């Protein structure tokens, strides 16, 4: 009995030492009290090495939980991550309102230009309305190209386009197997869709589809490679309605992105998509549009003008002009009051293009920071017919062999 007691008291001591040892090898919690919430969070205990997300979202102010959700006090990875919004992507449009929304953030009013979420959810990138209508028309499920369906149902109470709502497209209720296949295979790639399984696709929906370039970053300097993640030509097959992942990462702009038989100008493939295409073209303007063509409007002439007209310009007189905000978020150009920039025919600022005293223009690449100067068409020997402004007319002369 006495020996048993001694032995068990020894084992008791050992087990207490085990508890002490267990406790001493726990990682030391790293506390962060974001100024926005004032509530401690411990995500940095494991995630101290993450790159800073962006200059506009410093972790000292926002912390992690404001955007990502999750259990801020938990030091166990499973529990800490279990209530995260949207998994790896809090900007997925199913949760974006909770993650990125709020009147001080990205779901404010149109007047203060904070209605980003409303714009995106009605945009053609989210609804895919044109393609759905076109496929249904092609396979006989509807008699015209009128858009009736989006990837998700969406309404617009103050429509400028006459389209007030779209129903949610349900491939399973379609009779035609090709349309069903289209729904299964082709609608997973759009920013309002359920992302495909796998790490490669987890950030290809919501805001991050465009704005998250590289690990844990948000930016408005979006390189063409980011657009190319989806707009990458050649990995879907319309006959079989299949999609295959593209493994080769584009490096050479012209070879890897543009169609092999096409003709392009040098500026097209040295610039990035966002150097020409505007915010409302890519992110929507708050209205539901019927297809891509109805929202894409920038052409060569937007910057170069025609033989008869110079491109439109605007002199910056208001310090609150949206151009200054955009140039602040992506500081590639030192815009000043009194500068004259180009604007589109809808009045959107081309804030990275400024008129020079000699009447030519300078331009800074938004993603590459390349510097260009260029002349207007007016006053040159250009042989264009002013009625023929689509790019392929320009490409007849302005083509680059490669």
């Amino acid at each position, binding site marked *: *009995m*006495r020996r*048993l*007691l001694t032995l*068990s*008291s020894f*084992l*008791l001591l050992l*087990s*207490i030492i*085990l*508890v002490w040892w*267990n*406790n001493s090898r726990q990682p030391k*919690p790293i506390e962060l009290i974001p100024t926005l919430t004032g509530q401690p969070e*411990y995500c940095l205990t494991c995630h101290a090495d993450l790159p800073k997300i962006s200059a506009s979202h410093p972790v000292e102010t926002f912390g992690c939980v404001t955007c990502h959700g999750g*259990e801020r*006090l*938990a*030091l*166990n990875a499973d*529990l800490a991550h*279990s*209530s995260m919004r949207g998994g790896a992507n809090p900007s997925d449009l199913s949760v974006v309102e909770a993650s990125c929304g709020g009147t001080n953030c990205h779901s404010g009013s149109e007047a203060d230009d904070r209605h980003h979420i409303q714009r995106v959810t009605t945009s053609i990138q989210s609804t895919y309305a044109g393609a759905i209508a076109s496929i249904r028309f092609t396979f006989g499920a509807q008699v015209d190209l009128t858009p009736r369906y989006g990837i998700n149902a969406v309404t617009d109470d103050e429509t400028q386009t006459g389209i007030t709502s779209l129903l949610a497209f349900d491939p399973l209720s379609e009779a035609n197997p090709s349309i069903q296949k289209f729904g299964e295979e082709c609608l997973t790639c759009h920013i309002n869709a359920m992302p495909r399984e796998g790490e490669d696709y987890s950030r290809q929906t919501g805001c991050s589809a465009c704005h998250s370039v590289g690990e844990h970053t948000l930016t408005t300097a979006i390189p063409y490679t980011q657009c190319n993640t989806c707009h990458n030509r050649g990995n879907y097959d319309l006959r079989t309605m299949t999609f295959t992942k593209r493994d080769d990462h584009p490096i050479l702009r012209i070879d890897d992105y543009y169609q092999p038989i096409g003709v392009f100008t040098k500026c097209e493939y040295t610039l990035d998509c966002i150097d020409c295409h505007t915010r409302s073209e890519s992110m929507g303007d708050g209205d539901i549009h019927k297809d891509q063509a109805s929202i894409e409007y920038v052409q060569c002439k937007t910057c170069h003008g025609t033989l008869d007209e110079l491109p439109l310009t605007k002199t910056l007189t208001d310090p609150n002009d949206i151009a200054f905000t955009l140039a602040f978020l992506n500081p590639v150009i030192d815009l000043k009051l009194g500068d004259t920039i180009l604007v589109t025919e809808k009045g959107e600022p081309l804030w990275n293009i400024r008129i020079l005293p000699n009447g030519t223009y300078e331009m800074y690449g938004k993603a590459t920071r390349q510097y260009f100067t260029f002349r207007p068409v007016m006053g040159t020997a250009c042989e264009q017919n002013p009625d023929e402004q689509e790019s392929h007319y320009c490409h007849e002369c302005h083509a680059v062999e490669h």
Partner: protein
Amino acid sequence: MRPSFFHHLHPPTIPAAQARWRHTLGAGGTTVFLMLVLGVTGILEMFYYVPNPEEAALSVQVITYHVPYGGFIRNLHYWSAQLLLIVSAVHLLRVIFTAAYGHPRRFNYLLGLGLFVLAIMLDFTGYILRWDQGICWPLTTGTNLIKTIPFIGDFLFRLAVGGGDACKTALTRFYTWHLFGLTIPVVVLGIWHAFRVRRDGGIAVPPPHARTDNVRISRNELVRREVLTMFIASILLVLLSSFFPAPIAPAMIGKPSPDAETRAPWFFLWVQQMLKWGDPFIFGVLIPFGILVILAFIPYIFPKPADSDIGTWFPKSNRLAQVAATVIAVFIIILTLLNR
């Protein structure tokens, strides 16, 4: 030396048969030790637990992850509570299988059964105090069961929960029930139960004239055996608490999603399995209550065990009670295993 409660429970000598492992299984003594552990660790948790619906789950996370040794203490509390139910059940079965409930211990048997019911209620209320997404559906179904009782259901529901939506309001009531409403009765009944053990002649063994073995052991030897049991239980608790953390889930924000935990805590899995069969009052209230009534009536309406059989394993005169207890135990175990 002045006689104390300790000396009341530990007379100078007792028959060796009363303190044999193979007779008592050490179960009754272990429940006392587990309750002491529960009391101490429970008080320690109270230093940090915030009984407020917004903060409760967060304060549990603070205890679990931030307070030094807090996770360990919470695990100790959790594992002591789970072991308490198992050890109490073993104790109850031992008492039935050795016919230890016979006169004069009939009343103490009822006290023990009451303690067992209180322990189950304490375990359930304690589980609810986590107040995270894992508890809402079991809490809702568990408390809605009370409402199905005819006539007094609504009253009992208000008594337990305080009315309203349980997932929003029950915390204050459950906290008070757990800390005071159930704990104080357990302490009172527990002391009474222990007091009655000695008053009824110590742990049940055959009466002196039927005893074959008249060896007695000293108070010191008894205490040594108790201490050894305590050490072994402590080591087991420490190991369980070090390697198997108590369950925890994300904090509740509004109603948890429908895919949150819907399984009942393990000791109610058998009831949950029956609830799949039909009427919640019959399967969720009447049958469990009926089982309790059968158990309570064993000393009173089942054939009385012979005097010489009291305190011996599986005596003939006690067959019916043994069969009834076995059937109930097997029934509960099978239902528990069926519920996946």
